[in-house]
């Protein structure tokens, strides 16, 4: 593949090199390289566009001639998001915090509830077990949009009678996100639990441990990849969700990032560079999270969620 041992390849050796290279580049390899380059470019270019545009001036991104490389690493867009003294300050920090306030509890509660449910489905024998799994999957195919109207009315009625507001209530959002993510979480976890040999638990039972302590001491430690996967999956859904947040949140200071980005986008003074900056900020944490926990996801998300 490479000229290994020679500091100065002679003419023959160079020919040899080209020859070897030519032999290495077989048609399949060539097509493979071409395809990979194409796929990777198409994946990375929009990503690059987002990040680079966040450093552009409005003229550079809003003009009619695309600018591929910003003329300087300007932080104007970021200052607009975070600097209170900026004339068009967006107070984006609050939106980041709101998103975290929603996404973290959603992920934690989802892990707890789905662990309980999935354990029962995977390990315990009871009437209606199969029905639970299947009817829960129906939930997943219920497009979010069609629940909104009756859901809103119902929660408002409850809210009115026991005294809480529906609008701008992050707790209500956590509930709806949990409902959206629990079915898949349950599905993933119960499949994973099944891959853990029952014998390990039975040994524990014989030793006189209670059911809960078996789960806590034996099953959960073995299921960490799946638990992490579920946590990331629910976190990601809650972090990115758009529709429910759009309907349930009313005040800008309660907005989560996705709808705030939409608000910035719809500003009559177009701010595409600020949209890109906010998008970059919103995207980086999930990408980093995914990169850091990739090892767990590898086992949990897939090995657990799909059987052969």
């Amino acid at each position, binding site marked *: 593949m490479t000229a290994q041992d020679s500091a100065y390849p002679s003419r023959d050796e160079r020919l040899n090199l080209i020859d070897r290279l030519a032999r290495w580049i077989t048609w399949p390899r060539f097509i493979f390289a071409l395809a990979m380059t194409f796929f990777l470019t198409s994946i990375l270019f929009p990503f690059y566009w987002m990040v680079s545009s966040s450093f552009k001036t409005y003229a550079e991104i809003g003009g009619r001639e695309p600018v591929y490389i910003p003329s300087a690493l300007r932080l104007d867009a970021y200052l607009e998001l975070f600097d209170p003294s900026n004339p068009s300050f967006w107070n984006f920090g609050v939106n980041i915090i709101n998103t975290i306030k929603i996404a973290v509890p959603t992920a934690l509660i989802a892990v707890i509830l789905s662990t309980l449910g999935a354990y029962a489905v995977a390990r315990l024998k009871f009437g209606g077990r199969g029905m639970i799994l299947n009817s829960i999957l129906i939930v997943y195919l219920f497009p979010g949009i069609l629940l909104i109207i009756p859901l809103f009315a119902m929660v408002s009625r409850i809210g*009115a009678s026991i005294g809480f507001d529906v609008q701008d209530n992050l707790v209500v959002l956590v509930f709806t996100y949990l409902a959206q993510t629990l079915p898949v979480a349950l599905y993933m976890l119960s499949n994973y639990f099944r891959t853990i040999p029952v014998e390990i638990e039975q040994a524990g039972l014989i030793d006189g441990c209670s059911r809960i302590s078996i789960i806590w001491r034996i099953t959960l430690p073995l299921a960490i990849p799946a638990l992490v996967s579920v946590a990331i999956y629910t976190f990601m859904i809650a972090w990115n969700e758009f529709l429910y947040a759009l309907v349930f949140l009313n005040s800008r200071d309660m907005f989560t990032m996705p709808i705030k980005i939409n608000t910035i986008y719809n500003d009559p003074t177009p701010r595409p560079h600020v949209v890109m900056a906010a998008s970059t900020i919103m995207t980086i944490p999930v990408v980093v999270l995914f990169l850091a926990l990739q090892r767990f996801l590898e086992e949990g998300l897939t090995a657990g969620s799909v059987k052969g």
Partner: protein
Amino acid sequence: MTNPKNRSVSRRDFMKLTAAGVAAAGVGSVLAACGAQPAPTEAPAATQAATAAPTEAPKAGETLKCWWWGEQEAPGVENWINETVAMFKEETGHTIETTLQDTGVVISEFQTASAANSAPDIQFVWNGVYQMEAAWLGYFEPLDGLIDAKMLEDASPTCMNQYEGKTYSTAWYSCGIACAYNKEMFDKAGLDPEKAPETFEELMDTCDKLKSLDVIPMSAGMKDTFWSEWYHGHALSPNLDTPADALKLYAGEGLDWRDPRYYDVWTKLGEIWNAGNINDDMLSIDLYPAIDLFGTGKAAMTWLVVPLLNAQKEMLGGEIMGVFPYPMSGQGKLNNWPVLDTNGWGISAQSEKKDIAVEFLKFMQRPERITAVWDSSKALPTTKSWPGGEVIKDPWWLDVWEKYIHGPTAQYVPDMMPGLFWSDANLVNAQKTITGELSPEECGENAYQVVQKWREQSPDMLEKYALWAESMEKVWNEKYV
């Protein structure tokens, strides 16, 4: 707070403090909301309680909710809102909790909340059907009797906030429509920079001459759909005799979209597009970036709304920006009239503190407050008695005020479009005219079909639209001509 002896007040304040503390700690808003008054569960009960309220003496230190919108198109009004709320608190002791809403949900959110019985006391409204649909459902309180007739008339610059002799909102600032042109470019192209086109033929000629400068004659963006509505406002009015004609068209009562006079809206859109007078990427860019093509000197003219004039003027610099009504050369009495529209304020029928809400609406109508709208945001107030002629020093703005607010104006009729017409006729016809899929006649036919579909889907609205048209025609001829 104002009366330490009043137990209920101090308790309420304690609750509020606790709630605020909890909310600030970020623990959760369920608890925070517990501090607020529980809303009654049944709508009739709410109305009863509310009608009983004015007879009691106003209590000090009540808290009202107010949802609003406007900062998005008139930057600076948020300061005005905060200032007004603070002054109101100072004077009356009542707190107004304000929430700036997102553009996409201003109207639907109030209706959804009202249906769920959790509406705010005071709600910002767009004109026309946006408030009327809610009013017909009993969600808005008629203001007659609550606010005296003189003030109410003064705060009704258009007749689109009235139905069957009742008024549902008070005016705030103008959101009428206009066109802008670049005087410098007119000059370079050999046109008179002080004379904007006054007929459609002149407009087309002007565009032709501007093309020699290698600029976009008129800029527009329709990917995000809103432009179609603005354009409809510009183009339909000149072919009407009264704003009530629009209601008759939308409801299919007496007037017919298949009449060339009315589908002229799309005939002329086709003409100006086919002549290459609008930017070629009109369908793939959004409304506001397209307007910015004017402000950044890439387009010679554009369609816009009055609150956006300031930003474009500042971007373009100097006094090279002129403003003119879109020259449609229509066949109606309203041809060439500048088009006025206003945002306003309504009171929820579910509010238990209507008396205080009314006070706040009146407070906003004080001359000092109205002038402050102008000072804080360069949005032009629409209250009729406001002495803009004395307050506005800048001759450019004085001219705009005289033409677009003070002088005889037509009204922004798309405010009265039913939602179905908006999406299936207004938007579809505009976009299909640009893509060349529909001829003007076919646009007229489609609009007619959509009206028929609307009549089938909303039989309960037919009578309301008919009555609305009738009462509007009367009011228009009496008071607005």
